């Protein structure tokens, strides 16, 4: 099958003007002036950069304290995992599963899946391009939901402010966690799924 690149053609993403493409094409659309690229600019490098940053931040996000709860007379400090364990031990198993999925599984799966995609495209692999494309779609959709923990903490912090009796404060893990989520989203959006097919179609 013939790609646009093979015909040395590319379409402007803004005004749909088809232009001649050099490889790798970097230029401005002669009609609307927007950048025209046959592939996402610097996709692999950026993806790798964001992904590795996310992987680094994943460690403090899970080891540091996510939320400090002052519930008179006791005082709790929870990391993500200990919070899940607490929810589970308190009988809220469905909630624990939800938080576990959103806060532990999804970021981990995102990082792992993006890593797989980047490695396979880097090796010009022809392995199951349809499956990998589907994987990328899932990543893009599901990634939006992994901020759940940050939202929970932000909501509780805003709502539960009863002084000495009940108080919720965000812990130092919130920022790394938000960083993980944002960086994985950036990494997946930087990734160019067309790279899956660049060799796989041949």
């Amino acid at each position, binding site marked *: 099958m013939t790609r646009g690149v093979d*015909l040395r053609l590319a379409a402007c993403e803004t005004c749909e003007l088809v*232009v001649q493409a050099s490889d790798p094409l*970097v230029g401005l659309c*002669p009609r609307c002036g927007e950048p025209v690229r046959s592939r996402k600019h610097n996709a692999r490098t950026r993806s790798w950069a964001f992904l590795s940053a996310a992987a680094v931040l994943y460690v403090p996000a899970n080891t540091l304290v996510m939320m400090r709860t002052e519930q008179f007379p*006791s005082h709790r400090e929870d990391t993500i995992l200990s919070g899940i364990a607490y929810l589970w031990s308190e009988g809220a198993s469905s909630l624990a599963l939800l938080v576990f999925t959103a806060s532990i599984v999804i970021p981990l799966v995102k990082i792992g899946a993006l890593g797989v995609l980047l490695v396979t495209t880097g090796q010009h692999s022809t392995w199951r391009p349809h499956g990998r494309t589907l994987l990328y779609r899932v990543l893009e959709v599901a990634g939006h939901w992994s901020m759940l923990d940050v939202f929970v903490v932000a909501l509780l912090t805003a709502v539960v402010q009863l002084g000495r009796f009940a108080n919720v404060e965000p812990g130092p893990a919130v920022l790394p966690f938000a*960083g993980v989520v944002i960086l994985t989203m*950036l990494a997946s959006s930087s990734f160019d799924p067309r790279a899956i097919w660049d060799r796989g179609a041949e």
Partner: protein
Amino acid sequence: MSDEIFPIPHVQFRKRGRPSAVWIVPVIAIVAAGALAVRTYLQTGPTIHITFNTADGIEGGKSEVRYKNVPVGKVTSVALTPDRQHIVATVQLTSGGGSLATMGTQFWVERPRIGVGGVSGLGTLLSGAFIGVDVGTSTEKVESFVGLEKPPGVTSDQHGTRFKLTTTDAGSLAPQSPVYVQRQSVGSILAIDLGADGKAVNMEIFVSAPYDHLVTQSTVFWNASGLDVTLDASGLRVNTESLATVVAGGIEFGVRPGAPATPPALENQRFHLFPDLRHAMARPDAASLALEMRFDQPIRGTAAGVNVEFEGIHIGEVVDITPDYDETTQTFHFDAHASVFPERLGPAYTKLAAAGARNGLTGPQTLQALVDRGLRAQIKSSNILTGAYYIDLAWFPNAKPAHVIAKEGVWVVPTERGGSEQMQERVASILSKIDRIPFEEIGGDVHDATRAASSLLGHFDSAVVPAMQGVFARADTAMSALHDSLAALRDNIAAPDSAIQQATRATLEQVERAAFSLRTLADYLGHHPESLVRGRASGSEPKGK
């Protein structure tokens, strides 16, 4: 598709060979994560293990460790020791609390405690127990500690001095009992423990600065617990340090009046704890003198511990009494051994001793001089109600001459009969006198007198009563005659024109006029009281009505 149809984009050439700027993102992430890791590491102090007898109130992951009520760590887990005798609390200290993990640091579980001395740790009722810390002075790092079961009485940040007290009877004293000086609480008892021999009680007390320098070499401590009730000539007096000491006990210290100023006591110096103020303030008994007194009379009421007094001053006590038998006279007698402290006499003793030494007399010879003047020991009753006795060294100028015998360091003082036996003899003589009263004869006399009175009454019945009947009959006749004459008199007076009536009326009129004149005079005198002195002023006629 020809190339001419499609426009060529404006190509921008990029400089190559430079790493993409996007790599700044993972670098920032690494730096941020590293910073967080370093911060977390810096905030985490050492992990220590504290052994307690019980984990009551301690919870893993929850209980805090507090120094001066500042959280310095957290109990991460609580486990049994392998021998199951104790529990081990694993504590994660914060970086600031890391310096607490040194040799000598004390840990204890702060729980609500209610004692006679007060209530402490009330806040832990709500917050749950926490582990209190008192930091040691050493800088040597230690990881394992043995926790205290009770909070220490004094923490290292309190300035003061510790002293040791020894006593035989701690009474109601307990750890935390206050230490007073001038009735002000200046410290507390840290610990009380029974000596290994089971006889002496050792205490450790703490006197806080700046009052610790009040404890000098000559300071005396006494037990200020309870009530001191004194009944004497000035009435009933109840003396107590404070209400708290009645319940919780307490120790007071002070200096004997007239004691010379001495340097402050050393840390951990040992003192004797006197049972009460009176004992503490008694002059120190420098040397005791062993006296023996031989009484050839029953010594009922006299036993070991009975006071020996001289001129009313308590100078010693009877140590023991041994009955003895004299074969030559075939009599029983009792030897009272007494321990006497002559220095309690103060200057009297020193002058006597000095005079004796000047005249070259030994101790027994000095005493002999006193005995020659009539000094004798005598058992006396100090309290008739309780039957208490004491041995009095009193003067008997007419006593038979006697000698002081000195044997093996014991001076035998001659005695005089008296005291309990004298009283018993007097009681016996009173009883014998009562015995001699002829109760039977007195009873017979009384019986005769009663009989005479009875015959007199019988004579009265037979002779006097019939005569009286005639007297009554004549009296009746006389009364009726009197009645008739009174009736005639009434008729005479009651008639309207009787002479008595008229005379009475005239008399009443004259009395009325006299009363009127008297009133006029009274009015006049009321207005002119001076007329009593000056006579009636002319022209001022008293105005009648």
